[in-house]
């Protein structure tokens, strides 16, 4: 039984994939807290699609996937950030334009010139076959950088997320904090895209913080919980994908969705139980 569970670890590609899924899951859980609380879930979803354009372009030009898609992603992220800070255009509409155009460009490039290296399917739904030792180091590096940012700018990030106007008035440079957050978000999506694919990345940004929010009302605890949940979903989902013989992306997302459903039911039942007890006390 245990030997069966450990069997996939004999393969290097699986070990690499498992490490990347766990690290990237934790990273997205951490950044997702800010994404969800700032009401930017849609940006996360859009950004992952935008990065697909960079992915196609980089495979066409023969440059490194990380370099091409990374530069493209950060450029889109900063563009979205600039657009959302302007008030005259509806932010959601502007994001829709930027990200879908980039996604469409990726599709066109693939159709015209065909993919080189990583396959089209892998980009859309994730594949762990292409995860190299270098990728593992890269994802580890992104995690460290993002973790350091959240650690060092914790208060400014919290203040900017909760109350941007007063934060600005209190001397916090909210524009810089927002831009930093967008860059880190782009990096997190890039790290996760390999194992999850463009279409499912948004789930790892949204599910862990949403589950954590149901379990706590403290910001610092939510950050910790969400990171742990994201990492656990990546780890469990990746193992399940091997044993059930399905793609890694859907397996990771479904583990998260099941956890969400369980916590949703459990916290709901707990609240209902508390209400009935209070009701009894009140009527007694």
């Amino acid at each position, binding site marked *: 039984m245990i030997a069966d569970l450990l069997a996939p670890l004999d393969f290097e590609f699986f070990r690499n994939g498992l490490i990347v899924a766990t690290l990237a899951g934790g990273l997205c859980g951490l950044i997702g807290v800010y994404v969800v609380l700032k009401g930017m879930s849609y940006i996360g979803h859009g950004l992952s699609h935008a990065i697909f354009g960079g992915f196609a372009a980089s495979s066409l030009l023969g440059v490194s996937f990380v370099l091409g898609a990374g530069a493209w992603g950060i450029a889109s992220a900063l563009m979205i950030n600039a657009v959302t800070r302007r008030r005259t255009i509806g932010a959601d509409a502007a994001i829709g334009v930027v990200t879908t155009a980039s996604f469409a460009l990726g599709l066109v490039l693939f159709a015209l010139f065909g993919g080189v290296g990583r396959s089209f399917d892998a980009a859309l739904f994730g594949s762990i076959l292409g995860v190299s030792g270098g990728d593992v180091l890269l994802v580890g590096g992104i995690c460290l950088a993002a973790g350091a940012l959240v650690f060092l700018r914790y208060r400014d990030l*919290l*203040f900017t997320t909760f109350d941007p106007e007063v934060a600005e008035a209190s001397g916090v440079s909210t524009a810089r904090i927002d831009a930093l957050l967008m860059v880190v978000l782009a990096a997190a999506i890039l790290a996760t895209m390999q194992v999850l694919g463009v279409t499912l990345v948004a789930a790892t940004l949204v599910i862990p913080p949403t589950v954590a929010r149901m379990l706590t009302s403290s910001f610092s605890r939510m950050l910790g919980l969400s990171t742990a949940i994201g990492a656990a979903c990546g780890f469990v989902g990746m193992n399940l994908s091997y044993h059930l013989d399905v793609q890694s992306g859907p397996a990771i997302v479904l583990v998260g969705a099941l956890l969400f459903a369980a916590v949703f039911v459990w916290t709901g039942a707990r609240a209902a139980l508390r209400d009935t007890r209070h009701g009894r006390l009140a009527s007694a």
Partner: protein
Amino acid sequence: MSPLLRVVRAETPVAQRLGPRELVRLAAVSFDYGSGASVLADVSLTVAERQFVGVVGPSGSGKTTLLRTILGSARPCSGSVLRRDGLRVAYVPQVESVDWSFPVTVGECVLMARPSDRRRPWASAPERREVAVVLERLGLNGLAGRHIRELSGGQQQRVFIARALMRRPQLLLMDEPTSGVDARLRHEILHLLDDLNAAGLAIVLTTHDLNGIAAHLPRLVCLNRRVVAAGRPADVLRPDVLEETYGASMQVLEHAGMPVVIDGFQRERPVSSPPRIHTPREHARLRLGAR
């Protein structure tokens, strides 16, 4: 130096020096949000140490913009804003603008505004003591671990005052601290602000409440894009000033030495009874009758 403390100087140099007791001076300040319609026009105003000033005026009269100009988050298009060197200003937003479902405890909320070069997320021991002292001072002791939504309305307002006090301000700016609160809570907040003012804090607040708040303050500014009048309530709460400020006629009575403003609006009595809603069958009958 943070942007908050920077002295903003526009083109026209007017009244370049602050008096010894002055904290902020606005000289001929005008402001618009880029659309050409001015929000503030030629506003001159000084706030001195230990002053307690209420800003009254109709919606859209530039009250919040005036606060933001004093704060430094809005830059005037013309005119000058002088702040005392190193002046610490804190701002309490309208309670309605707060996201109450945001996962943040009272302690976290109060601590986030503390200016600090500390590069660690958690609070240091002196910071924790400081939070405890501020919470105690505002009667919020023991609530640091509670979520902000679990508090009563008055406690919620005080959490944001506590957050502002963490900046150890010399000047506190509050936007509508009593909008949508009941009389008891209004008294509670007014007493609290009075105590803070007595302890040396200068306060500028905006309010819609002429009788409940404005009449009790030592100094009022009537604003309608420009300063219509400024002075003691007994001097500025006059029918002519109020009409000019609000563009509507109001009457002022006196009760126990305090002005009481009465909205002059009188509804015209309806001449005929209002139309009643007919049932379909009645409607059909009426139409048949009309034919």
